[in-house]
């Protein structure tokens, strides 16, 4: 259905003005359109929705906190393991020096994989709700 061009359609423009003034039957139209709708939302709707929203927000926060703790634990374990390995065998320390790293292409491969994963995650991040 096309938009009406009120600048060129004089009959439509005249009728629009009558609508806006509430002339004749348009007074009844405006009155009927202003009347409230039955039924309405339950009286405790706001309290119930707020309780649900807060419960959901808590539930969403909890797995994130657990995940953070797990990742932190894993990092501590890896760092501890690395330090222990370096203390036990000096060849490990040599392998991690810049010259040693170039001699180990799998380290470069690992770094490339991490970069690609982060890049793809950034590109596929969820779209945001329209801004206000």
């Amino acid at each position, binding site marked *: 259905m096309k938009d009406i061009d009120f600048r060129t359609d004089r*009959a439509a423009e005249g009728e629009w003005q009558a609508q806006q003034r509430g002339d004749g039957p348009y007074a009844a139209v405006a009155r009927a359109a202003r009347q409230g709708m039955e039924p309405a939302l339950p009286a405790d*709707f*706001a309290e119930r929705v707020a309780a649900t929203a807060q419960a959901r927000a808590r539930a969403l926060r909890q797995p994130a906190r657990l995940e953070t703790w797990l990742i932190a634990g894993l990092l501590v374990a890896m760092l501890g393991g690395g330090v222990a390995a370096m203390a036990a065998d000096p060849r490990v320390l040599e392998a991690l020096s810049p010259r040693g790293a170039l001699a180990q292409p799998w380290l470069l491969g690992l770094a490339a994989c991490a970069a690609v994963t982060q890049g793809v995650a950034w590109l596929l991040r969820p779209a945001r709700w329209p801004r206000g």
Partner: protein
Amino acid sequence: MNEDRILVDAVLANAPGAFTRLVRTYQGLCWHIVQRMVRHPDDAAELCQEVFLRVHQTLHQFRHESPLRAWIGRVAYHVALRHLERKRIAIVDLGGDEDGMAFLENLGDGADLEERMGQDQVDTLLHAAIDALPPVQRTVLTLYHLDELSIAEIAQVTGMATGTIKSHLFRARLRLRGELEPRMGVTAP
């Protein structure tokens, strides 16, 4: 606008009762939009809950570039729209409007309508006619008259151009007048 900012900041700071206050302030607007769009009270109540859960989840993205009521109205409109799309319900009248516009040439003045029918009967007739309008026209009419949103605000809520909103409002009111015309002794198309 300043009240919006205070309320939004309170909700984002998890102030006790702030989100309840926000819901209470805008639940009427949300109900009008969703109920006018879907016309099914049980579905509408569920969709209103979905609207406010989404508002709670995404309020941090609100940038105060429009009034909060327009932003919440937009969320409500899109939730209702998606519901209608899932149910494959047309939201606008896809038919031509030549008949409706031709009707412009045969209008009576309608002055004695309520003397003939009585106000209650006229209101009953008009409520039935409003229910029979396409969802978008019904919603635009309600937002304009009941919630007193301007055409520009309705455009923000629906994402349509102001000219399109004006045309929908015009056609909706003309069609309602058309429902009354046969009772006024003037032949409607």
